[in-house]
């Protein structure tokens, strides 16, 4: 039965209260452990078309008569357009239309960052459009640049109000402490740099606006455009069958889509607007830099008494304030916690969500300082974390729907115990060490989400839903869930997704929510179809429904008397089909749904050059039931590798005086390569969350990147005694930390020695 509820909805750590119509989740969870299909490794059902280059991405789409857009972007970090003349552009060959400030909201006269869009042109070829953009005459007035986040906070130049979160009495907690440690940590700007740049191809077909876009949320684009353009939602069709990576940066329509729509409307032709790699590095979002000033107080026995943090998100000219204080608020049991988070509005490109936004940065600061505390107390770092384990959500006192962090710690022990042997492999100049860090993040998903399942006379099934597969293996996981419930082999289940006009509402592929949001709806739809097949089979064979089941493509009876292929039953319908529908049920009331884990990193540090290598990472995560162990392993490896880039090599540089971005190409911005990959060992607890949906599955997209930087920096500390305070751990930062450690050692040595 449909039920109207008021509930909290979480995406990427941001909560909002919404009204929802939810349907009861009537299905019992499957018992824990691998089943016929679910829980067993499956290769991607769309692997072949991607590998053979047959999959058509937005970048590959060529519509008849399609024009190409180019965008004029601000060359300055802060400037005003005094006047602009589009006429010289319109006079050039091949040009069909041009737009500027005033034509659409996304093109403005005040530009707060280098790369802000000002005007755009469409032409027969991209080269013609580029030439036309270069011909646009702009009279610029340069304005004062504020690029330093602390400076912006001091001026009160903020996005939103500072976020204050407190429980207990922080000052009293500090007074109670036997040991207090303090530290300032800084993280850098990191870019998503998805291999397929942000882009859209749009065309009008009658009254319908068709938008082909590289996106993580086709239905969200539909709704956003419906609202902003004043069009009925059903007059907008958003399509994304394959997309080349997003990592949080492709959740909304983006200025390129609005530019393409405006130009397509003026030119009466389809228009592609695609960012170049250099534009991608300027204007497509980023993980913003942070400054974290942290304090931890503890009793001599290791019990935490106070946690305090002043956080500055260097948010950029727009965006939102990521939950960088989240780990401090929620990871450990501590009665007195006080955090303040500022979002500094500076003349830098706006941030966007990037794989566990805030928690990656906040975990680096908190877990680094916690190891400093452990050393001061003389307590084993793993033991210190166990001592302060939170049995319920410390931030709001709610019980967890499921939490197996202690089990993760237990399974981490063999990896943690390698540290004596690893350290022993150090030489005079190459020091080795082991570090660990805990992981906490969201990933419970939520309603609403819907799916349909159709079963044809040939005994094959198709899952239909308006979701998208951003490369995480969603098609495969959904096919596994449907196959399991229907009792069909995996190769008899297809998944039709990626088109907002061909399927019911489906949720965003962000916030580690795809599997936990969509999976239960797919299972419910498959169960509805199965129920109908069994009803027909019961009538056909004159048996009771309750003794019938479907296994491995056959309708079977409990006593074994019936074992007949599904197509014999469904085939009676000839061209007609069985149609099942399903909805995602509500999340458990009054419970906190989170993911947990731990990573143990082994590093080598050249103390002469400051070079750091990661040699091994062991990852143990708790995300409830695992649908596809093979895909899950790939997700973990990918997250850790992105985390290694974040920790050791990636950094967007800018000139602090002018705000100019200095790294806009893939040779200047250093992504990890295959040669940078360490040995990675991954393990999942694979215990269904008994309170969460008919699956007990949480998301795994983000958790693996959360603790990597902290585990590596703690390993560096273990190897060298040097305390890293800044990401990336460049040679410069490493040598600074080594020098500081040496001075500290000298100061601590008894006089005269």
């Amino acid at each position: 039965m449909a039920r109207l509820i008021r509930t909290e909805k979480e995406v990427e750590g941001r909560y909002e209260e919404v009204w929802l119509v939810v349907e009861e989740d009537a299905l019992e969870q499957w018992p824990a452990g691998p089943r016929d299909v679910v829980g067993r490794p499956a290769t991607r059902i769309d692997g072949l078309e991607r590998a053979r280059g047959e999959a058509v991405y937005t970048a590959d789409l060529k519509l008849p008569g399609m024009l190409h857009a180019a965008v004029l972007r601000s060359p300055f970090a802060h400037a005003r357009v005094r006047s602009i003349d589009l006429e010289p552009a319109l006079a050039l060959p091949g040009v069909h239309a041009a737009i500027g400030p005033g034509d659409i909201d996304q093109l403005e006269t005040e530009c707060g960052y280098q790369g802000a869009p000002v005007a755009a042109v469409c032409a027969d070829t991209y080269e013609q459009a580029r030439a036309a953009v270069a011909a646009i005459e702009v009279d610029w007035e340069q304005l004062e640049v504020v690029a330093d986040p602390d400076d912006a906070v001091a001026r009160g130049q903020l996005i939103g109000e500072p976020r204050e979160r407190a429980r207990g009495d922080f000052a009293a907690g500090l007074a109670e402490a036997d040991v207090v440690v303090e530290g300032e940590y800084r993280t850098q700007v990191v870019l998503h740099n998805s291999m397929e740049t942000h882009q859209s191809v749009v065309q009008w077909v009658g009254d319908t606006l068709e938008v082909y876009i590289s996106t993580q949320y086709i239905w969200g684009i539909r709704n956003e455009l419906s609202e902003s353009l004043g069009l009925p939602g059903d007059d907008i069709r958003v399509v994304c069958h394959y997309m080349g990576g997003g990592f949080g940066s492709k959740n909304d329509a983006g200025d390129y889509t609005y530019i393409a729509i405006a130009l397509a409307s003026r030119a009466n032709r389809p228009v592609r607007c695609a960012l170049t790699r250099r534009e991608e590095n300027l204007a497509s979002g980023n993980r913003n830099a942070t400054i974290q000033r942290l304090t931890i107080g503890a009793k001599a026995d290791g019990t935490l008494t106070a946690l305090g943090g002043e956080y500055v998100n260097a948010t950029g000219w727009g965006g939102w304030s990521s939950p960088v204080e989240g780990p401090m608020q929620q990871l450990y049991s501590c009665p007195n916690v006080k955090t303040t988070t500022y979002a500094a509005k500076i003349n830098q490109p706006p941030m966007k969500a990037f794989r566990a936004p805030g928690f990656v940065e906040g975990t680096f600061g908190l877990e680094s300082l916690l190891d400093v505390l452990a050393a001061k107390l003389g307590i084993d770092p793993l033991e210190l974390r166990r001592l302060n384990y939170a049995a319920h959500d410390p931030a709001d006192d709610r019980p967890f729907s499921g939490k197996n962090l202690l089990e993760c710690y237990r399974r981490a022990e063999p990896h943690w115990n390698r540290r004596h042997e690893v350290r022993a492999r150090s030489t005079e100049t190459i020091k080795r060490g082991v570090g660990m860090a805990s992981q906490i993040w969201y990933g419970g998903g939520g309603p609403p989400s819907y799916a349909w399942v159709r079963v044809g006379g040939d005994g094959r099934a198709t899952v239909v839903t308006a979701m998208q597969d951003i490369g995480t293996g969603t098609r495969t996981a959904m096919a596994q869930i449907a196959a399991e419930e229907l009792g069909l082999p995996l190769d008899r289940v297809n998944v039709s997704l990626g088109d907002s006009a061909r399927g019911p509402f489906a949720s965003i592929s962000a916030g580690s929510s795809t599997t936990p949001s969509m999976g239960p709806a797919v299972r419910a739809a498959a169960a509805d179809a199965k129920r109908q097949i069994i009803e027909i089979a019961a009538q056909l064979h004159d048996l009771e429904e309750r003794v019938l089941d479907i296994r491995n493509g056959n309708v079977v009876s409990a006593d074994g008397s019936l074992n007949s292929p599904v197509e014999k039953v469904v085939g009676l319908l000839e061209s007609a089909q069985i149609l099942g529908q399903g909805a995602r049920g509500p999340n458990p009331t009054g419970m906190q749904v989170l993911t947990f884990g731990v990573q143990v990193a082994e590093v080598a540090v050249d103390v002469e050059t400051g070079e750091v290598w990661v040699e091994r990472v062991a990852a143990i995560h708790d995300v409830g039931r695992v649908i596809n162990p093979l895909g899950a392993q790939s997700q973990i490896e990918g997250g850790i590798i992105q985390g290694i880039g974040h920790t050791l090599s990636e950094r967007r540089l800018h000139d602090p005086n002018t705000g100019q971005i200095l790294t806009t190409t893939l040779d200047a911005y250093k992504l990890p390569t295959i040669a940078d990959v360490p040995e990675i060992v991954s393990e999942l607890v694979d215990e269904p969350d008994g309170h969460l949906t008919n699956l007990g599955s949480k998301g795994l997209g983000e958790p693996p990147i959360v603790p990597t930087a902290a585990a590596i920096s703690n390993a560096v500390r273990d190897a060298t005694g040097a305390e890293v305070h800044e990401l990336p751990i460049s040679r410069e930062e490493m040598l600074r930390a080594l020098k500081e450690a040496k001075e500290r050692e000298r100061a601590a040595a008894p006089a005269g020695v």
Partner: protein
Amino acid sequence: MPEVKVNGHVYEARSPVGTTLADVLRDELSLTGTKVACGEGHCGACTVLVDGAPTLSCITLAHALNGAEVTTIEGLRTHRMVQSFVRADALQCGFCTPGQIVSAVALVETKRDPSSEEIRHAMSGNLCRCGAYPKIEEAIRTWRD
């Protein structure tokens, strides 16, 4: 009109002088399996074989090929390396994958059983932002299975 030999067929390229091989393949011949992710030779997504050697098509001019034989992912669709990538789960979003497979084929055509070191050396010019690298190494190590 220069002739361009692609996957065993001979085409007369109509694109003007100065057009890259990647643009001729994708725009003129509609062979969109070859991807362009950076357009300046930094990422390896556009890798094709020119007379068997891995070549960045986004910074190669079509008119400079002088009759060389070009092989794209479309010409390698039946190669065992493709199946090996799928089997090892060596792809996530898949955008860099055709370029990875072309580079991997070039490697194993010269060295049937490359060592881990050789794989890492030969493949270090092909970026994968999803981080499928461990599985890519596995796919190349096990391509004949």
